[in-house]
C-alpha cells in the first residue's frame, strides 16, 4: 500500500541523507520524495511516498521520528488530506492531426500545453494520484518521449496542531 508521509525536519545539511539512508538501508523503496522550505526558515517539510504494509510503515515512521533533527512525522494517508503531484510530459506529434488529438485529450484533464515543437507537444498536468494515473494511462498509446514528476505533496484537510 502507498503511504504519504510528511516530515517536518530542521533545515540542516545531512538531514535528507540521514532520512533517505535510514529508509533505504532497511530495504524499503521510496517512490517519490519532495523537500521544500516552510514559513519557518529553519524548518523544511519532506513528503515521502513509501510502499509497504502497515507494519513496515509503522517502523519507518518510528525510525524517522527518532532522528535527532526530525520535529514531527505524520502519516497523511491515515487522515483526511489533499495531495497533488505535478507532471511534465513530452508527447510526440508527427503531424497537425496528432497534435490536435493530444491537445484535445489534455484539455479533458485540465492539462496545459507549455511548449510546442515541430515533432512534439509538452504538457503540464497537476492532480492527485488517481488523476495522474488516469492521465498517463490514456496517453500510453501515444509516444511519450520524456516524463518528469515532482513527487507528491500533501496537506491536511483540517488542521489539528498547525503542521498537518
Amino acid at each position: 500500500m502507498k503511504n504519504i508521509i510528511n516530515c517536518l525536519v530542521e533545515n540542516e545539511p545531512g538531514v535528507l541523507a540521514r532520512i533517505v539512508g535510514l529508509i533505504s538501508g532497511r530495504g524499503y523503496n521510496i517512490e517519490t520524495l519532495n523537500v521544500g522550505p516552510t514559513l519557518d526558515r529553519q524548518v523544511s517539510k519532506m513528503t515521502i511516498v513509501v510502499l509497504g504494509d502497515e507494519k513496515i510503515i509503522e517502523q519507518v515512521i518510528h525510525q524517522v521520528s527518532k532522528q535527532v533533527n526530525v520535529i514531527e512525522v505524520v502519516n497523511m494517508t491515515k487522515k483526511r488530506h489533499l495531495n497533488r503531484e505535478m507532471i511534465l510530459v513530452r508527447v510526440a506529434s508527427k503531424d497537425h492531426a496528432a497534435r490536435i488529438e493530444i491537445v484535445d485529450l489534455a484539455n479533458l484533464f485540465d492539462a496545459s500545453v507549455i511548449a510546442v515543437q515541430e515533432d512534439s507537444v509538452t504538457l503540464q498536468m497537476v492532480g492527485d494520484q488517481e488523476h495522474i494515473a488516469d492521465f498517463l494511462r490514456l496517453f500510453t498509446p501515444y509516444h511519450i518521449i520524456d516524463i518528469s514528476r515532482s513527487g507528491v505533496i500533501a496537506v491536511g484537510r483540517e488542521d489539528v496542531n498547525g503542521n498537518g
Partner: protein
Amino acid sequence: MKKEIKNKKFSDGEIAERSGAQCVVDGLVKAGCDVLFGYPGGAVLDIFNCLYDAPFHFVLPRHEQGAVHMADGYARATGKVGCCLVTSGPGATNTITGLATAYMDGIPLVCISGQVPLSMIGNDAFQEADVVGITRPVTKHNFLVRNVDDLPDIIAQAFYIASTGKPGPVVIDIPKDIQRQTTTCIEPDTVEMRAYKPHVDFNPAEIEQLAALINGSHAPVLYVGGGAIAGDAAGEITELARKADIPVVTTLMGLGAFPEDDPLALKMLGMHGSAAANYAVDRCDLLISAGARFDDRVTGKISEFAKRAAIVHIDIDRSSVGKSVRCDLGVVGYIKPVLQALLPLVKQTKHSEWVEQTTRWKERHPFSYPDKGEVIMPQYVVEQICAVSNGKATVVTDVGQHQMWAAQHYTYTRPRSFISSGGLGTMGFGLPAAIGAKFGCPDDPVVCVTGDGGVQMNFQELVVPVEHKLPLVIAIFNNGYLGMVRQWQEIFYSTRYSGVALGQEGRLRMQRIEEASGYLPDFIKLADAHGAVARRIFNKSEVTPALQEAFESGKTCVLEFIVDPEANVFPMIPPGHDVSSMMLRSV
C-alpha cells in the same frame, strides 16, 4: 543555511577569545570527561596541543578501533559517556566497527574526529574521508562543524544526545581550520534542542493495565535486557520480582540487572540460555519485557516465542515496541520511573506453584559440562574466575564460545559486571573494552575473558595497561580454533571444518595443542614482548592457583588456558527454531 550569530558572552562583559581546539577541550571538561582515549594525526594537532594542559587523563591506544572499544568499555563499566578523539581519514574510518558496536548496544559515546579544512572538503585531500556520510548508519547522530561559533553548543548537544533517550554514539567531525579559528561563544549550561526531545511521559493508564496483568497472572516472567542497566533500574527490577514473586530471565546484555544468586533468577534466555529460562518463557502466561528488544538470538522462531503469554514491552525506544514480536501492551518511557510508578500498584503475592516449577527446571538442567580429568574445561575456568574473585570481578568478554561460557557459568550479582558486544558481536572488543573498563573503575577487579581468535584482533592494545601499570587479568581460552564457528560447522555442516583452525599447521583434527609442536603465535612470548606477566596453563589443578596469583599480582597478567578443543556451548537452540528443538548436550 546561515545561522543567527550568537552573542553569548561572559556575564561580566569580558570577551574571551578561544580557539576551536580549546573549545573542544573545555567542552569535554564541562561534560565531565575524566579519561580521553585518543590517537593523534595531522587534522587534530591543534586539539592535541590544547590537550597538553588538559586536566583529564589521556590514554593512547595503538589503533583507533582500540580507542573506541576502550571508550565503550569505560562507558559500560561506569554508566558515563565514553570519549575518544581521532584524526581524519583513516583515523576516522578505523572507528567504524567500534561505533557500530556501541550503536547496536545503545552505549553512550562521543567520538571527535579531525577533518581536512572546510575549503578542501570534497577535493580528495590527503587523509580526507566523508566521515558524517560513513558514520551516519552507525551513530545516533553526527555533526560536521561548519562554524567555530557553533562548536561549544555542538559539544554540549553531543553529550546530551549520547546520554539521553536510548543512549548511543555521537560523532563530531571538526575541520582543521575550525579548530584554529577563534570564538567568543561559551559552553551552554543547559541544552535545549528544537527537534530532539528525549523526555517521555509514560501513560499512567498503561501502568494500571500492566499492574492488572501482573496481579491477574499465575505464571509471569520478567524478561530483562540491557535497557534496565542503562536505565539504572536494577533495584526496581529486583523489588518488582520479589514483591510479585516473578521469576527473572535476562538477555546477554541484561546480565547483572538481577542478582543471579536469588532463587527467582533463571539466568540467561535464548539460543545459549538456560533450559529453565527458555522453558519458563515458553510456558508463562505473562511476559514482561523490561528494556529488551527481542533479538533473534533470544526469540528463535518468532511465532513460537512465548506463545501462551500476554506480552508487555517496556522500552524507551518506541520503535522497539512491537518491532519483531507481537505486543499486547506497550509502555514507552524511561524504565526506572515506569517501574517506580508500577511498584505500588502491584500486589505482594506468591506464585508458589509456578516458582516451584521453574526451580525444578533449574535443578534438573543446570549449565553443565563433562569432566575430562586434568583436561581444562573452559566452563571450569569461568567458574574458578567467579570463585577466586568472590564474584566481584567485572567480566569483559570477546565474542564466541568463551563469551557464552562466561555468560553461563559466572554468577552475576550486580549491574555493569558483565561487559560484552551483544548486538554486533564484535571480535576484538574484549581486550580494549576491558582496558577501558579498568580505567573507568580502577578499584574493581577486571578480567578479560577472550579466545585465541578474538584476542589476536586487537592484541596490540596489551601494551596500554602495561604502560599505565593497570592490574588486569586477561584469560585467553586457547582451543586452537575459532570455536563458535567450528561448533556450527560440527553441528550444521557435517564437521567439515573450514577456515577455523588456529595455531598449528598440519595439526590433527581436535588434537590438543600441547601434543602438537609449537605455538603459533606464542601468546606467552607475545605478552612478554608487551611487558605483561604471562603464564600458560595446561592442567585443571593449576587453574585456581594461577588465577589467584594473577588477581593478587597487581599487574597486567596474561593467562593462556589450553582448554578442551572439543568443548561446545550447550544448551543450544538452532537459529530460527523454538524451545522444542533445544539441544541440552552433545549428541
